[in-house]
């Protein structure tokens, strides 16, 4: 008994290795292999780290740029407004009564204070300083209302990443759901859903977004919803094809023979097998969503005027071509981020493509 101990062959060499075992190292899960393959791809790995850095910037935007000091002594009391504002944003804390009169804390007659490195809030209007060129005081200059561009850029990271991730999250839910139904159930359900996919794919997405944006109030919430609801077709089609393929595999028959319900088979048995390739268009989708938001805000039908995103910063250059920094700075930020997400998607594709290595 137990002659076929392939796994035991490390300790007791049998001199024969079953040819059905893949040449990969023994003891590795699918995701570990993927991670190792991904690490080999330098640009993708670099992009991944930069995007992590960008996420950190987005999370700490209020500490990097803003007019709320880290530490402030006002009328004998000591405050930490820069930290407190995080609590205020999420609704856990409130500003003390005496600090409610002004939004710009630089205007309080404080006795001592330490302000962030960039002591301007993105929406802080200084009409006396409009269209300042990049310089020591304003590193990336100011716009037509004297708002600091660097501060807007840092805070805009939040919107870009949020829009990208939430919009793609919505697309993923819709795309995975409809694609799974079409691919798994098949028959007339597949026929019907596939026609819907084709119909949806036939409409140029940007015009669809513009049309939809006209019907809804300009807000971040609606922009994310609209981009998410228009960008799911690619994911749905890919999911459908993956489900079609995997549902005919023996282990799905085995799962059915084991008494699993259809829902359980779809979610627990097939989904983990198909999620990897679906992540590739999702990564590209984030880049697409960021571009779409910038485009909408540039056209002035995206976010409301008081919200500073990269797209709305860029839109500021429309009224004054001479203010070149209003084109270069946000344009470059958009370009970099979109490139990083595309490189990440490329890296994922290479790492997940089984044809690039032995079969799993």
């Amino acid at each position, binding site marked *: 008994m137990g002659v*076929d101990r392939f796994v035991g062959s490390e300790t007791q060499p049998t001199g024969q290795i*079953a040819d*059905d075992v893949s040449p990969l190292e023994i*003891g590795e899960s699918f995701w570990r292999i993927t991670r190792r393959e991904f690490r080999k791809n330098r640009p993708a790995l670099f992009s991944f780290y930069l995007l992590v850095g960008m996420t950190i910037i987005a999370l700490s935007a209020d500490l990097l740029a803003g007019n709320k000091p880290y530490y402030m002594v006002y009328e004998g009391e000591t405050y930490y407004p820069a930290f407190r504002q995080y609590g205020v944003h999420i609704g856990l804390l409130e500003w003390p009564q005496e600090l409610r009169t002004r939004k710009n804390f630089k205007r309080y007659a404080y006795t001592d204070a330490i302000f962030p490195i960039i002591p301007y809030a993105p929406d802080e209007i200084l009409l006396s300083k409009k269209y300042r060129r990049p310089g020591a005081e304003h590193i990336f200059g100011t716009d037509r209302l004297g708002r600091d561009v660097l501060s807007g850029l840092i805070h805009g990271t939040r919107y870009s990443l949020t829009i990208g991730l939430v919009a793609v999250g919505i697309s993923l839910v819709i795309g995975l759901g409809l694609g799974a139904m079409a691919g798994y159930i098949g028959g007339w359900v597949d026929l019907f859903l596939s026609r819907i996919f084709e119909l949806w794919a036939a409409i140029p997405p940007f015009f669809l977004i513009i049309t939809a944006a006209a019907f809804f109030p300009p807000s971040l919430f609606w922009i994310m919803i609209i981009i998410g609801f228009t960008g799911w077709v690619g994911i749905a089609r890919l999911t459908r094809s993956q489900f079609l393929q995997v549902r005919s595999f023996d282990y799905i028959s*085995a799962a059915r*023979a*084991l008494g*699993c319900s259809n829902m359980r088979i779809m979610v627990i048995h097939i989904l983990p097998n198909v999620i990897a390739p679906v992540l590739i268009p999702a990564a590209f989708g984030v880049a697409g969503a960021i571009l779409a938001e910038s485009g909408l805000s540039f056209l002035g039908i995206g976010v409301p005027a008081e919200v500073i995103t990269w797209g709305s910063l860029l839109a500021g250059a429309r009224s004054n071509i001479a203010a070149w920094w209003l084109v270069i700075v946000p344009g470059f930020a958009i370009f970099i981020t979109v490139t990083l997400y595309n490189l990440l998607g490329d890296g994922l594709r290479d790492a997940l493509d089984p044809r690039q290595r032995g079969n799993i």
Partner: protein
Amino acid sequence: MLLTQGSVEIYERYQLETILRVNELKTHFDVDGSVVRAVDGVSFSVESGKTLGIVGESGCGKSMTAYSILGLIPQPPGRIVGGQVFFENVDLLTLSPRSLRGIRGNEIAMIFQEPMTSLNPVFTIGEQIAEAIRLHKGFNHKNAWRRAIELLDLVDIPLPEERAGNYPHELSGGMRQRAMIAMAISCDPKLLIADEPTTALDVTIQAQILDVLRRLQAELGMGLILITHDLGVIAEMAHSVLVMYAGQVVEQADVRKLFQEPCHPYTRGLLASVPTMSSQIDELLTIEGTVPDPVDYPNGCRFLPRCSFGEESCQQPQLLAEVDGAHLIRCGEWQRVKGVKVG
């Protein structure tokens, strides 16, 4: 060992009790506007503790019979057009999908042909075995995992604690098939359907897998349907045998009887094409021709185009007739066939 406790008792209680009775089962497939009669009126029964071998060449409806019993036929294009499948006096074909799910894996389990592809690549084998236990027995994660390790030990997998954490691609074919068996017996099924469990394995591993199956059957007292095209496996494992050809049963007998007095020309052909230790022949016999197109079966005997005993009367539809005790033959000329020496 948890699993074997009281299994002698179970064995005695269920011994010789008919657990599955298939009656005139017909499964058809609609392919490009024509009807493929994959299973065409198959009847048999399985007793607990006994093994029924189903033998026949590829495409004769062996696997489809098994799939029909469990309701695993993809519908459409497949549909079960007639017959009954009584499992403990309940017709499985009339059950709701929900009640059927409660029986699959729990009361009737199945082992598939390809151990390479019948395990989900993204879960460890321990997780996959534990899932079945959780699903039907309501065990929590920890107990199900512990039970999964016991089951791996029961199917003779060395170091079961470690192997439970392995992914299928890390195991050899024999190990995977053992894991499949562990999964199948995880809920103490009353009936186990093994669809060519050893076809994809090499011969030494085959013998081990069959040993495991036989031992488990004796310990758990379950009925076993063994689908194979290997007559050696049948001779070693089965108590009674069903020979299928073109969707029909052509001969059914006790295993001893079938090997000693094969009466259908097809069965004889199958037996003659197996080399024996004693015979000194240069060339193995084959059955000339191929299985008829399932869309267009001949009206009369379906084996007639390949049969060397063909007669005028064979143009008429042949019935499965009881000839000698529990020996059923679908051949009008069986007495003449029986007289001729095999080979």
